[in-house]
């Protein structure tokens, strides 16, 4: 079982990202689950979304999770919420920030000693898509770190999932995914 927790703000696309990732993984014959905690949260409120991936049908519906990966797609959430909660020794953190990994850890001691990678998904999204929607670039970074799939295979599948959007936006998302793949450190 592979488990992922997303930290996001409502409106940044974590749910879409989690569902998109689940969709791509499902095409390879694995079983998936994607869900989120909404509450009565309004746009901009901190929220979490989740992915589970397994070889067998996923029966577990508990919300509690000890994630293998934590994605943080809003840079401020590292400070305003505990992104390391229920973490395991080998949990991998991929965090959106304009800082270097070293600077980030220095600014948030909770990340000390953890496997942390950084990438500026906000800037990448602004420069490619034209809006601060950091969900698809995060998935590009995840493909690099996890080596889950070849990036071209992943992009082809994401094109299908994003097909209802205008071609210009789909192309911009592909650029964003590739840039995050190349730039994550």
């Amino acid at each position: 079982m592979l488990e992922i927790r997303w930290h996001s703000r409502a409106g940044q696309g974590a749910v879409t990202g989690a569902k998109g990732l689940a969709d791509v993984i499902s095409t390879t014959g694995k079983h998936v689950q994607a869900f989120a905690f909404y509450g009565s949260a309004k746009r901009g409120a901190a929220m979490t979304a989740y992915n589970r991936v397994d070889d067998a049908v996923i029966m577990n519906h508990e919300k509690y999770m000890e994630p293998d990966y934590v994605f943080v797609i809003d840079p401020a959430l590292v400070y305003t919420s505990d992104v390391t909660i229920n973490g395991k020794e080998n949990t991998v953190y991929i965090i959106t920030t304009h800082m270097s990994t070293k600077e980030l850890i220095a600014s948030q001691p909770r990340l000390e000693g953890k496997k942390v990678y950084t990438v500026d998904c906000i800037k990448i999204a602004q420069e490619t898509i034209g809006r601060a929607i950091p969900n698809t670039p995060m998935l590009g970074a995840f493909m690099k770190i996890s080596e889950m799939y070849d990036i071209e295979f992943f992009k082809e599948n994401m094109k299908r999932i994003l097909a209802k959007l205008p071609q210009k936006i789909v192309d911009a998302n592909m650029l964003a995914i590739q840039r995050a793949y190349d730039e994550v450190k």
Partner: protein
Amino acid sequence: MAFDKMELRDIEVWDGNFAAAQALRQCQVDVVSAYPITPSTPIVEGYAKFKSDNYVEGEFVMVESEHAAMSGCIGAAAAGGRVATATSSQGLALMAETLYQASGMRLPIVLNIVNRALAAPLNVNGDHSDMYMVRDSGWIQFDAFSPQEAYDLNFVAFKVSEDHEVRTPAIVNQDGFMTSHTAQGVHTIDDDTAFNFVGEYKPMNDMLDFEHPVTHGVQTEEDWHFEHKARQHNDMMTIVPGKIDAAFEEFAKLTGRKYNQVEQYDMDDADIAVVCMGTSVETAREVAKEMREKGIKAGVIGLRVFRPFPFASIANALKDVKAVAALDRSAPGGTPGALFNEIAGSLFNSDTKMLLSGYIYGLGGRDLTKKHLVDLYTELQANADAGKVLTQQQQFIGVRGPKLAYL
């Protein structure tokens, strides 16, 4: 007017709401009369979008309340159409009066309830308070444990509800958020096969059949009211269970997915068992398997059909079990939980002397964790070993503060 068919992949990653909306499209529902409410909104929104995009030939009626939504469904069903809607929680509470009208008028309508807590305090998350609130409303009630089942059970619901010997409305329950907003792989049925399973809608006593005028919504006082209600109950008890079994059988032939009124998992040699509904059934199945690795013979019973209550089947499923927990996801309001009471009732005049304890859990979407279930099974095993219930008969799982136990 022709409509377009939709190409689906064999497995689509859908949440429970979208799965239900797709089923409504594939059944080519004639009228959806709806007033949206969280977390059921995307079901009727989905149908409306399919209709706007010409994937369904029907009518979407926007109304001013849930009371009006079900009233619109009643009118459309009486007129002779295939009818469905969806609601949750407070919406269902406002709809409650009209639910009794629909069942009393013997109108086949499918209502998707995305189960959610009832205020106060206001809460949009999943529990079974709304399902329990309308349990005696004369509707058939199915319960889905996953998005796949939310999809599948809609087809079964139309099939059973519209049968001319049944003509009783049916509810398909799914857990708010835990199913409705959780995306998982759903094995799809192609449009033609899905539609052929439910078939063309065949109206009966429809008001638009001007050759055969009928009266709907009549008044009967003490001279006839009881006979009508008795007939309704009689059909629920004697006709509906067989029709549900037949529909499950036919559905299994079509898809390979076999449903049962009482779903049994790891029950063949079980010493202890949990009885519950919704997503909890699946989590409990996973934990039961893990308990078995530790040598504890744990099983799970999931109630697929809540009404008509499968009284004999559940008693039979539990007859060789030593200790059983009935899990109720609804505030009991001064009594044991409904499942506890109904299971106890099914066993009372039998030879079964198993130990029954009741648990209230998960109110307002409170998480039921695997750890909770491990503790629960451990407690049941202790009861089985001791030959008596070592705790009080009603306990609460996962609530903060001092431990609560009664009876």
